[in-house]
């Protein structure tokens, strides 16, 4: 209780104590009691006031009295709240400009998101009154809970340290902002992808027009049908719009305390750090707002580490029309009259530089000292340190859950969860958070290199994305459910040796898309025999050749070969023992050359191998001038094809194996 008494004594010395304050102090006696034990841990500046500070407190007190006398309608100002040691401190001295070593905190975005993440909100009680105590940023960082004023103070300290022209603003804001309630806002992670498709459409339209372009013939269609379609679509759109409107209008009841809720936020003025326009930062969310934002309802006062300004402008219509010219005494009444403002400080530095240059030329020029007004004393707060660990943990306890409109966002600091989960975003179909729609999860540092998983609860399919180091260079996997027969869509990194880019598997079929292969293969479609059911256990067994019904391979045009010798499509009909080859189209022609082979029987124990005869081949050569190939060449061609068929079957087996092992 010594400290308390001491501070009481001090206050009595200054004669500025009001009965109200006394009451307030006793209200918080239990808090102070708990603080008392750790008192010795705080530096002296926390526990005592220097002579400058005492003078300042007197000035502030005087100012408050005059203010309440001149403006009896206005609420008292937040000038000298009590710190964690129970000592009255002027708010400006609570700001300790701090520059950290972390590059992430060099910008306002980094600072704001750190402050917003690192602290959890301790709402004001009652929400319409200014707080009576304001802890230093150092103890706030330890506690990790803070009032909005402590949020603002910490953020402002960091911003001042990185040379922003920042101010703590005390004023009034809407309920959702004061209580950190984001349930009416869209989740920032839910970005709309409509813009992208629009751009694609635009680029398609911007194709070059050539006056000799042949226009495709107009498709004849009925105007009536089109109109009906249009009507139907419009009706649907209207219906949809109404639905969404209904949902949107389901707003919570109006706030009875609208315009009275006290809030503290940060104002950044233009001029420093290439800031072009003044803007607000809400320290609770870390988001920036324009100064005309409707969320901010009024400003009482604002301060930085140099001075304290009281708003003299009318803000009954919100803050949109406020002017932030702090040198204009009609608009902003400073507590310390004649003290240096930030602007003056910058000017002074410039002037000094100049005069320094000048004084080199004429030495006799003496600088004229102006009579010094009372300057703001140094901050009593010790240096704010933020450790790397603090930056990594981010949230109090390493995790945080935020509810947005129809969405829930859970965030975890790295290595907190053993499964590497960093972020989980759950979107809902309704506003009561009961019906899950999509669950999207982001991971890091996982052994299987999983980075992203998206589960559609309704359509029941899962999409997974991987980093490049994954086995088989798998980048993207999408499946309905985890069993061998499921539909599966895979995408691969382009560094694969076989050039595989995408593989789509449905029961009984498999499609593979290739890119950049030397043999110009770009498409392979396999149809398996549906009658042979293979269950989960069967996947590991060798996919037997009999299982394959048909393999279709397509090739890009190889310009080195003439079109009539460049294969465009090969169809292996394995059960029919047939191979069909279609060649590329020659320029200007409509019909490609074709060849179809029937494989001669292999030799068995009973029969000799079948001889290759001319009727096993049928060819259509599109160019009548070309000589038909002789039997030997055809036979060699068939042999090559049969070799290729064996290779293809092997490759398909490999693919099957890969699929079954990658899903393990």
């Amino acid at each position, binding site marked *: 209780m010594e400290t308390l008494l001491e501070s009481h004594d001090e206050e009595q010395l200054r004669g500025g104590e009001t009965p109200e304050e006394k009451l307030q102090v006793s209200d918080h006696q239990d808090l102070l009691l708990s603080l008392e034990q750790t008192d010795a841990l705080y530096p002296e500046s926390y526990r005592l006031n220097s002579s400058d500070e005492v003078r300042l407190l007197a000035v502030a007190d005087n100012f408050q009295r005059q203010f309440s006398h001149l403006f009896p309608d206005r609420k008292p100002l937040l000038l000298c709240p009590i710190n964690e040691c129970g000592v009255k401190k002027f708010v400006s001295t609570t700001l300790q400009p701090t520059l950290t070593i972390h590059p992430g905190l060099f910008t306002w975005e980094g600072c704001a998101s750190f402050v917003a993440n690192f602290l959890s909100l301790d709402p004001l009680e009652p929400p319409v009154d200014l707080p009576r105590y304001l802890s230093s940023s150092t103890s706030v960082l330890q506690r990790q809970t803070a009032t909005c004023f402590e949020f603002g103070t910490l953020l402002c300290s960091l911003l001042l340290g990185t040379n922003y022209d920042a101010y703590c603003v005390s004023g009034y804001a809407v309920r959702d902002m004061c209580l950190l309630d984001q349930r009416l806002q869209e989740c920032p992670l839910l970005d709309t992808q409509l813009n992208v498709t629009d751009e694609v459409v635009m680029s398609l339209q911007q194709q070059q027009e*050539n006056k*000799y*372009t042949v226009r*495709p013939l107009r498709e004849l269609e009925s105007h009536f049908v089109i109109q009906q379609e249009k009507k139907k679509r419009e009706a649907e759109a209207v219906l949809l719009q109404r639905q969404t409107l209904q949902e949107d209008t389901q707003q919570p009841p109006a706030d009875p305390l609208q315009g009275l809720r006290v809030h503290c936020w940060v104002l950044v003025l233009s001029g420093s750090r290439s800031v072009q326009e003044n803007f607000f930062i809400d320290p609770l969310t870390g988001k920036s707002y324009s100064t005309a934002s409707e969320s901010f309802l009024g400003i009482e006062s604002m301060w930085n580490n140099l001075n304290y300004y009281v708003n003299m402008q009318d803000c009954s219509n919100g803050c949109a029309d406020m002017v932030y010219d702090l040198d204009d005494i009609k608009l902003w009444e400073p507590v310390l009259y004649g003290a240096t403002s930030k602007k003056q400080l910058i000017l002074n530095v410039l002037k000094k530089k100049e005069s320094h240059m000048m004084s080199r030329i004429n030495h006799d020029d003496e600088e004229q000292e102006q009579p010094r007004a009372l300057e703001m004393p140094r901050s009593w707060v010790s240096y704010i340190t933020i450790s790397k660990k603090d930056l990594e943990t981010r949230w109090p306890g390493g995790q945080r859950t935020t509810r947005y409109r129809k969405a829930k966002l859970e965030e975890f600091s790295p290595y907190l969860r053993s499964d590497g989960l960093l972020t989980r975003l759950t979107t809902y179909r309704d506003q009561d958070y009961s019906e899950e729609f999509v669950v999207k999860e982001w991971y890091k540092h996982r052994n299987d290199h999983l980075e992203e998983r998206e589960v559609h609860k309704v359509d029941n399919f899962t999409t997974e994305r991987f980093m490049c180091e994954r086995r088989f260079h798998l980048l993207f996997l999408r499946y309905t459910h985890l069993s061998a027969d499921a539909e599966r869509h895979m995408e691969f990194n382009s560094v694969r040796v076989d050039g595989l880019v995408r593989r789509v598997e449905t029961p009984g079929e498999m499609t593979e898309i290739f890119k950049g292969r030397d043999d110009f293969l770009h498409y392979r479609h396999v149809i398996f025999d549906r009658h042979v059911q293979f269950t989960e256990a069967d996947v590991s067994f060798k996919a037997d050749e009999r299982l394959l019904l048909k393999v279709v391979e397509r090739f890009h045009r190889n310009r080195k070969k003439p079109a009539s010798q460049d294969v465009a499509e090969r169809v292996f009909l394995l059960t029919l023992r047939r191979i069909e080859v279609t060649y590329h189209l020659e320029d200007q*022609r409509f019909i490609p050359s074709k060849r179809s082979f029937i494989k001669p029987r292999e030799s068995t124990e009973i029969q000799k191998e079948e001889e290759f005869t001319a009727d096993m081949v049928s060819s259509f050569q599109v160019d009548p001038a070309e000589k038909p190939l002789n039997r*030997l060449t055809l036979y060699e061609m068939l042999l090559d094809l049969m070799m290729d068929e064996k290779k293809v079957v092997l490759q398909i087996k490999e693919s099957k194996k890969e699929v079954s092992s990658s899903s393990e």
Partner: protein
Amino acid sequence: MSGHCGKSEPILIDEEILKKAVMEQGPQYEAGLIATAEEIVFSEVPKLHLQYRNILKIDHLWEFTSLTKLELNNNLIRKIEGLDCLISLTWLDLSFNSIEKIEGLESLRKLEVLNLSNNRIPVIENMDTLEKLTIFSLTNNLLEQLDNVLYLRTFKNLFTLNLLGNPVHKDDDYKCFIAAYFPNLMCLDYRHLDQKTKNEASIKYHYVLEKIKRDGLLMQQAAEAEQRKEAELQLHHDAFVEFLNGSYLFKNMLKDDPEADKLHYLPGMASLLHTFEHQMVELCMQLFETGLAEHKRRETEVNSFFSGQSKAVPHYQQRASQILADFEQQHRERIEELHHLSDPEVLMVKVNHCKDEINLLCNNLMALDFQLYSQLEDIIKKFDINISDMVGSFIETVQGIFAQCRDLEDNYNEKVREIAVATLEKVAKDNLEEDMPDDVRMLFTDKDTVMEALATGHDNHLQTINDRETQLVTRVNAWKVALVKGIQDTELKQSRMRISDIHRYMDYLREQLEESH
């Protein structure tokens, strides 16, 4: 040489030997059986091995036009001959023979590997056309002159050279010399030519090499300049305004003026002529500029037409492919169905259905072709109109400028006439102030001759201008007509080709259908 085959008699190449050789190197097993059943076609044989056969003379090889590799080593050949038809040959081995002179290789332009080792060749010669030569072996021959090797410097791709066992090889400086003059060479005398030797050689022969390099560079520059000049002239030609960027036309006009020399002595003629030339050249330049600009415009027009045309075809090809793919899918299913049918009546119906479908496909494809053809025809018409307009306006402009030329000429002629008349009068009155050579004075005593000379000159000038104009106009018109005609013809040809393709394919499908049941 080839003494190890001493027992057998020297032979000449005949068809029998060739057939046997081809058969021996032919495919084996099943494929071999097929090959024997087929007739041997010499013109398709890619390789021929004819070594160790005591062959005396190369003969009977004219049918092997697609031969790429020919081995005739270890024979008794004395003269390189009979290889003129082997135009695709890339590999020729004539080592271990008795050849005394390099010859008969002129038509082997694709030759890359040439082996003439172990012969009796004293000089490298007659190889100018073998531009693609990469490996050249001439070991154990009678080459004596080191300078003669420089003949091979023309082959830019040569990277292996074997000259072992020649008298030349005994020269102390041999290796360095070769390394210096053949910087691209990788192997010399079956050994890798290392960088060290190359560096030494290049230091030793520094001055000579520098000079060669400089000469080469100069030659190259000259060739490039020549090429540029030619290209420019070609451009002017294509723009139909060749030789109009200067006083060429003017000089042409005055080329055969009668009595020109004498007339030039007249007072005031020099300055008059000078202005005339100046004005004429200016007009010519105007013509020239217009010509180039118009040429550029026409070029862009032609390009945009062709790009439009070439874009149209793939679109239709795609549609045709789509139709075909759809049809084939169904057709295959139908054929499959046919195989399972046994009832002849049902079969008949089904076969007829198939035939109908084939006809339908034919109609669809034909319709597509017709669409393409008519659309292309439309754009060709449009192009024709546009290009005709361009050509028309160009001709108009040109004619205007040529008219100005003629006016200029009239004007000039008028003035010359005045001066001539004045001089004539003076000569007649004999009060000539200027000093004049006697023959000129003589000329001006006869009025008729002077006047006639002037009139002929004037006619000639006009004639030259008219000729140039006519030439330009006719050529432009001819170009345009040929261009449009050419486009139309190819279009028609291509359409015909597509239609015949479609019909042939239909026949093929019908045939297949007949066979399948």
